[in-house]
């Protein structure tokens, strides 16, 4: 072995000058120098970003607030030539149509039923999601069993409680959006748990059936599932049974959400240490006792953030039912957008901005919640 080693090119031969001592100055100027203008490329980047913000933000604010029309009864208020000033967002349009956006064509005299339903829904959601709420097990029974039955009677109407029948064709707007989302979560959680258990089962046929279902549904777009539910469900049922127009996409959404929920729950099941299973078995618990009393309470707890994230996705995906002709929020906006009595150049943008705001508030709120739970669950590891 030769001892003379050729000096590789990449070794520095002379030492660099020492760096200046770190700047310990405090105050806004020092902060800006450190965080906005630390070097020449960074300064250029900062200036470019500031320029882009300058280009984008003022017109947006101008459109949404300064030039916006807040009051008015028809299109004249929102047309520049009749209003006499440049017109931005036409909030008067949203205000005029707000009942349609919330209830769809639900009969005006019966709309209190929808309001009651919103309250019932809110009670169920808060009861389940607020981790310190009392008797959350009762809350689960309420949300997954009592609430669906109540909703059905309340919204559809029933003779023996004296509520008029309201056909689902009249439902619309935010009501339908929330119904689709609620049906998704109410069905997908139990089904998802069953599928996840099935996927981890030792019984080969049950495992295979679960895997095929989950992978099949996750491999196709929701819109194809919805179209399938829309066109094929009526074919598969006996000729004398007709399935409600609204119920078809609900079936599709429920199946679709179950497959995604199953994967989230499976993650929780896999994260359980084996000792938990062994401990449960050594106590002589049967399979279902072990799952219900030992494994699932812990597994579901650690996947709450995952469940909420899946639910955010589901909530956004509910807008797809508009494509198969269900009057959810997006569809009601699309329908109002072309209403001749409100035909003005900015109506479309206004409608979309309203819907975007609605979805953003819900989804952002849920994601904050899931972050909070995540932090709480991680608190044990932070010590």
């Amino acid at each position, binding site marked *: 072995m030769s001892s003379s080693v050729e000096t590789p090119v990449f070794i520095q031969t002379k030492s660099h000058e020492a760096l200046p001592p770190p700047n310990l100055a405090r105050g806004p100027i020092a902060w800006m120098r450190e*965080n906005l203008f630390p070097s020449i490329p960074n300064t250029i*980047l900062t200036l470019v970003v500031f320029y882009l913000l300058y280009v984008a933000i003022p017109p947006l604010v101008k459109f949404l607030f300064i030039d916006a029309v807040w009051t008015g009864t028809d299109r004249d208020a929102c047309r520049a030539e009749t209003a006499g000033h440049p017109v931005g967002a036409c909030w008067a349009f949203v205000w005029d149509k707000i009942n349609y956006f919330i209830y769809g064509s639900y009969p005006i005299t019966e709309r209190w039923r929808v309001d009651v339903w919103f309250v019932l829904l809110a009670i169920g959601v808060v009861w389940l999601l607020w981790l310190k709420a009392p008797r959350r097990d009762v809350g689960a029974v309420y949300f997954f069993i009592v609430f669906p039955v109540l909703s059905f009677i309340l919204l559809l109407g029933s003779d023996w409680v004296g509520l008029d029948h309201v056909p689902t064709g009249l439902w619309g707007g935010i009501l339908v959006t929330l119904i689709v989302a609620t049906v998704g979560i109410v069905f997908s959680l139990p089904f998802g748990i069953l599928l996840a258990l099935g996927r981890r089962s030792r019984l080969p046929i049950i495992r295979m*059936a679960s895997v095929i279902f989950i992978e099949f549904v996750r491999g196709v777009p929701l819109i194809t599932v919805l179209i399938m539910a829309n066109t094929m469900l009526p074919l598969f049922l006996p000729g004398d049974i007709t399935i409600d127009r609204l119920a078809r996409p609900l079936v599709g959404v429920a199946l679709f959400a179950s497959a995604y929920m199953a994967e989230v729950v499976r993650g929780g099941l896999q994260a359980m240490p084996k000792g938990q299973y062994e401990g449960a078995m050594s106590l002589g618990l049967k399979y279902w006792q072990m799952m219900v009393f030992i494994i699932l309470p812990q597994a579901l707890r650690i996947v709450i953030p995952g469940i909420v994230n899946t639910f955010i996705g589901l909530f956004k995906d509910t807008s797809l039912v508009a494509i198969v002709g269900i009057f959810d929020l*997006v569809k009601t906006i699309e329908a109002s957008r072309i209403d001749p009595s409100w035909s003005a150049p900015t109506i479309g943008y206004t409608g979309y901005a309203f819907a975007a705001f609605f979805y953003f508030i819900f*989804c952002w709120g849920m994601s904050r919640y899931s972050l909070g739970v995540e932090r709480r669950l991680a608190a044990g590891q932070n010590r």
Partner: protein
Amino acid sequence: MQTTVSQEAPKGSILYDPKVRGIFYQVVLVAIVAFIIYEAVTNAAENLQRAKIASGFGFLNNTAGFDINQALINFSAAGSTYGDAFIVGLLNTLLVSAFGIVFATILGFIVGIARLSKNWIVSKVAMVYVETIRNIPLLLQLLFWYHAVLAPLPQPRDSINVGNSFFLNARGLFMPKPLFAGDAWVIWVALAVGVVATILFRRWAWKQQAATGKLYPINWISLGFVVGLPVLMWILLALFGANPISFDVPVKGTFNLRGGMTVYPEFVALLLGLVTYTAAFIGEVVRAGILAVSKGQTEASSALGLTSAQNLRLVVIPQAMRVIIPPLTSQYLNITKNSSLAVAIGYPDLVQVFMGTVLNQTGQAIEVVVITMAVYLTISLVTSFVMNIYNRRVAIVER
């Protein structure tokens, strides 16, 4: 002392034997599934017969009778079949997905890196972008892009005209279409040679750098091979009087433009929507991946004198890729699946053409749904398979 252990299980009721129970449960499941399938098939057969709808895949050979504006193969209402319509839709889906994947990856990496930037305003802007985009349904964003892209554009007669060869109006962007003459193969060969030469040169340069530390301007030389060589051949051919590539320039007619090639506004809106939406998710994936690389790696690389760009490119991202690839794969699949939202804005993708128009015209729901779903499943499986191979290559080698 010896005790004989009985090999037989203690006698209990056969009802409590887990094996028997397992078989019982599975038989029940099979019976339920079989019953559902049997019911569905018999009902479907009966319903189809009553509605006088044909069954079988013969309809694929029937004349389509409708037109599709963006078709990558020759398609006409009179001369093409439903099978051709299927291929047109499939190609359009693949086209928008492929473009979407490329641009969303680029934008997503920029967003992810920007969110981790030490530059306060850059990271905040990236954060606001991600939070806004992720919390609004894609469908709404597509509708917005479609009307925002389409609405302000002028009518065909007032097209925005750039150099009499590019025209922009509400019906799309009209561009010159290159036509390749017989001797254009020389250019294709030059391109292929350039690509091969680039790959070989890169390998050689890496080996040289590993052995001696000498750096070559790899990117410039690659560019020279891939772009320079075909252009050089083109110029040479032109000098010898041949005309390998000519352009079909769109001509302004009374109502619309003729000739050339067109980028349709539906395509642009769908692509914009998919790219901006998915980039927000990819940005989060990239951010998580970069954060997963331990800080010691960055410190070590700056101790070795790498600049922060080199650190990112040579040290952090190659390691972050291991964490990034699996969720990135599912984002790619999401782009492909989400491209089906094209149906909302009228871009002729697989769902719009096949599950929309063809399904409505033929009424053969089962066949159409089965074919469409099979296509998406195949795409999903193939993508996962390819990405798994890549993932195995970059996965950490445990020693």
